[in-house]
C-alpha cells in the first residue's frame, strides 16, 4: 500500500506505483477504492454467516442454549472495548495526518491492545462455553455461533497483525510521512470489523435474550 | 447466400424432428398428461410454448433474413451510422414485458390452484431412501415399496418425507415433481383419469445409484384397488419345511435378512423395503429389475454389484442358498 498516485501527484512527487496515470480517472486512489469494494463484498460474507445464525436460532435439538451460556455484562464490556478501539484508530489516523508519527504509534499500539483485549475476551468466552458443553459439534447453536464469532475474531486478529506491522515499520522510521493512506486503509478495515461486531452484538447476543 | 440457406434447412429439419419426437412411445413423457394436475401444467406449458415459438421464429428468421439482406456486396455503399432509435427500443422493451404479463397471469392462477389441498384424498406417505421408495397408507395400515397403488378418478395426496438425502418424487404423466427433503414434510396431490401404469423416477441427485431409484404408479379401478389393499393386509403364510421355500424361510433369519426387512408376522426390520408381498410387485430394487426368479438370483448374488451403492450388502450366499431364498420370496405374493 504505497503512496497513491493521487497523493503523489498532489504533492508533486513521482508516483511510486509507476503506473500509467499520474492522476487517476476519478482522482481517488486505487487502493482506497479497492478497500471499499472489498468491504462491500465482506458485507455479503458476514451477512450469510449472520443469516445462518438467525436461521438456526431456537432450532437446536440439544443444549446448551444461548441463555444457558451468554454472559451479557461480560460481552458488553468486550464489545465496548472493541468499539473504543475504533476511536483510538481514528485518532492514530488524525495524528498521521498531522505527520505526527510518534503519537500515531501510541494510538496504533493502543488500538492493537484494545483489539487484543477483545480477542482475549473472546478466547476466554469460548473456553467458558466449551466447558459448559458447547462445541462446534454439540448443536446448531454451537456450530453457527462459533463459526460466526470465530470468523469475526480471525478478522480482528488479522487487523491486529496489520496494526503491529505498521507500528514496527513506523518505529523503524521506514514509514514516509506522506503514507497517510496506509494508515487510513488499515483503519477502514479495522472500523469495518468493528461495525460487524456492532451487528453481531445486537443480533446474536442481545435480541435472542429479549423476553 | 449459402450460409443463410443452411441455417434455414437446419431450422426446418429441427422443427420437423421436434414434431416427430412428441409422437413416439415415451412412458415417462410430460407431454401426454393423464390427470387433471398434469393437464393444467401441460396446457400452461403449451400456451407459453407457442408464444415462445413465435418469438423464436421472429428472431431466428429475422437474423437469417438480416444477414442475407445486408450481406457484403461490393456495389453497396457504406452503411449509414445509426446509433439507435428510442421509439423502437421502447417498443421492444414494452412488447416483451406485455407478453410476459400475459403469461404471468395464468401462471399465478395455476400456482395457487395447485396449492389447494384436495377433498377426500387417498393418503399415501412417501419416504425417500437411498435408493428406493417406501409407501405407507396410514388409513389402511399397508406398507409397500417402489410401486404405489391408488384408485383412478380419486385424488391422491402424497405426504413426502426424507430420511437421508434429498430425493425428488415424480410421476411425469400425473403431476410435476416435488423434492423429498429430510427434516421437512411436504405434500403433493394428483389424480389419474383412468386406470393405467405410470412410470416415474427420483429426479434429485441422491448419490451413487440415483439412476436406479425409479418408481411405478398403478392407478386402478376402485374394486381392483380394494382387492390389492386386502391382499397387502394379509399376513403371508410360512412355507412348509423341507421345501426349498421352507429352507429359504429359515435362511431369511439366519442370514440376517430379517434384520433389515419386514415380513409381516416374521420380522420387523426397517432398513430395506417391506417384503411381505414383494412378489406381488412387478419389479424390485428401486424398480430397476423386473420381478423374475432369474433377476432375484442375480440380485442376491451381489446387490451392490448390480446396483451400485445399494445398502444391501453382498451376503456371500451359495447358489443353493440363493435358490432357496428366491423360492421363499416367490411365496410372498
Amino acid at each position, binding site marked *: 500500500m504505497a503512496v497513491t498516485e*493521487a*497523493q503523489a501527484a*498532489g*504533492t508533486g512527487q513521482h508516483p511510486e506505483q509507476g503506473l500509467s496515470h499520474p492522476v487517476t*480517472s*476519478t*482522482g*481517488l486512489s486505487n487502493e*482506497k*477504492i479497492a478497500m*471499499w*469494494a472489498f*468491504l*462491500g463484498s*465482506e*458485507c*455479503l460474507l*458476514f*451477512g*450469510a454467516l*449472520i*443469516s445462518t445464525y*438467525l*436461521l438456526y*436460532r*431456537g432450532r437446536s435439538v440439544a443444549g446448551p442454549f444461548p441463555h444457558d451460556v451468554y454472559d*451479557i*455484562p461480560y460481552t*458488553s464490556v468486550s*464489545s*465496548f472495548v472493541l*468499539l*473504543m478501539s*475504533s*476511536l483510538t*484508530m*481514528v*485518532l492514530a489516523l*488524525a495524528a498521521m*495526518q498531522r505527520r505526527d508519527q510518534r503519537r500515531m504509534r501510541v494510538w496504533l499500539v493502543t488500538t492493537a491492545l484494545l483489539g487484543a483485549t477483545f480477542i482475549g475476551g473472546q478466547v476466554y468466552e469460548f473456553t467458558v462455553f466449551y466447558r459448559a458443553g458447547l462445541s462446534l459439534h454439540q448443536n446448531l447453536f454451537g456450530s453457527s455461533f462459533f463459526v460466526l464469532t470465530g470468523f469475526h475474531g480471525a478478522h480482528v486478529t488479522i487487523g491486529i497483525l496489520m496494526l503491529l506491522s505498521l507500528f514496527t515499520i513506523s518505529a523503524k522510521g521506514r514509514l514516509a510521512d*506522506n503514507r*497517510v*493512506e496506509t494508515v*487510513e486503509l488499515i*483503519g*477502514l478495515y479495522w*472500523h*469495518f470489523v*468493528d*461495525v460487524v461486531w*456492532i*451487528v453481531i*452484538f*445486537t*443480533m446474536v447476543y*442481545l*435480541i435472542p*435474550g*429479549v*423476553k | 447466400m449459402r450460409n443463410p440457406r443452411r441455417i434455414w434447412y437446419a431450422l426446418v429439419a429441427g422443427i420437423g424432428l421436434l414434431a416427430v419426437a412428441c409422437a413416439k412411445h415415451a412412458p415417462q413423457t410430460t407431454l401426454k398428461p393423464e390427470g387433471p394436475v398434469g393437464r393444467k401444467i401441460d396446457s400452461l406449458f403449451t400456451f407459453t410454448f407457442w408464444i415462445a415459438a413465435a418469438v423464436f421464429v421472429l428472431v431466428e428468421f429475422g437474423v437469417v433474413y438480416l444477414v442475407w439482406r445486408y450481406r457484403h456486396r461490393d456495389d453497396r455503399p457504406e452503411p449509414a451510422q445509426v446509433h439507435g432509435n428510442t421509439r423502437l427500443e421502447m417498443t421492444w422493451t414494452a412488447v416483451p414485458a406485455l407478453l410476459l404479463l400475459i403469461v404471468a397471469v395464468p401462471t399465478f392462477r395455476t400456482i395457487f390452484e395447485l396449492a389447494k389441498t384436495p377433498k377426500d384424498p387417498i393418503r399415501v406417505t412417501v419416504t425417500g431412501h437411498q435408493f428406493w421408495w417406501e409407501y405407507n397408507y396410514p388409513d389402511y395400515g399397508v406398507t409397500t415399496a417402489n410401486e404405489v397403488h391408488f384408485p383412478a378418478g380419486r385424488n391422491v395426496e402424497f405426504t413426502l418425507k426424507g430420511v437421508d438425502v434429498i430425493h425428488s418424487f415424480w410421476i411425469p404423466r400425473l403431476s410435476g415433481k416435488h423434492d423429498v427433503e429430510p427434516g421437512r414434510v411436504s405434500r403433493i396431490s394428483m389424480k389419474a383419469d383412468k386406470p393405467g401404469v405410470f412410470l416415474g423416477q427420483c429426479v434429485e441427485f441422491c448419490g451413487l445409484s440415483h439412476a436406479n431409484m425409479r418408481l411405478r404408479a398403478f392407478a386402478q379401478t376402485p374394486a381392483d384397488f380394494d382387492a390389492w389393499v386386502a391382499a397387502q393386509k394379509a399376513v403371508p403364510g410360512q412355507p412348509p419345511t423341507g421345501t426349498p421355500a421352507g429352507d429359504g424361510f429359515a435362511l431369511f433369519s439366519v442370514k440376517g435378512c430379517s434384520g433389515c426387512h419386514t415380513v409381516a408376522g416374521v420380522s420387523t426390520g426397517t432398513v430395506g423395503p417391506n417384503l411381505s408381498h414383494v412378489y406381488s410387485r412387478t419389479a424390485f430394487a428401486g424398480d430397476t429389475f423386473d420381478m423374475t426368479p432369474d433377476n432375484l438370483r442375480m440380485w442376491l448374488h451381489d446387490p451392490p454389484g448390480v446396483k451400485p451403492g445399494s445398502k444391501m450388502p453382498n451376503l456371500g450366499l451359495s447358489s443353493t442358498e440363493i435358490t432357496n431364498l428366491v423360492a421363499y420370496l416367490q411365496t410372498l405374493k
Partner: protein
Amino acid sequence: MSSTTHDEAFSSPDAAMESPEPGVEEHYPDEWQYIKVALILFAITMAEVGIYYISGAERAIISLMAVMMIAKFTLVALYFMHLRFDSKLFRRLFVTGIILAVAVYLIALSSLHVFQR
C-alpha cells in the same frame, strides 16, 4: 456523446480533486469530534444493555435495539470511516454491499419462515 448524468455516479466533488494537497484531508473532523462520536456510541451501548434487562414489550424492545444498532453502525461508518466526508463512490460501493446483503438474506430467511416463528 457522453452521458454526463451517468458519469456523475463516479465523479467525486470532494476528496483529492478539489483539495490542493490531497494527502492531507483537512476536511476530516478533528479529534474532538471523534471523541464526541465515541461518547454517543458509548451512550447507545449503555442504553442497549440497559433495555436488555427490561422484560415485556418484546416487539418494542427488539425494534428499539435494531434502531440503536443501525445508529451505531451508521455513526462509525459516517465519521470514523469518513463516509460522510469522502467521495460518494466509496459510499456507493459499501452501501450496495449492505443493501444487497440485507435484501437478499431477508428474502431467503423469510422464505425459510424464520420470521413466522
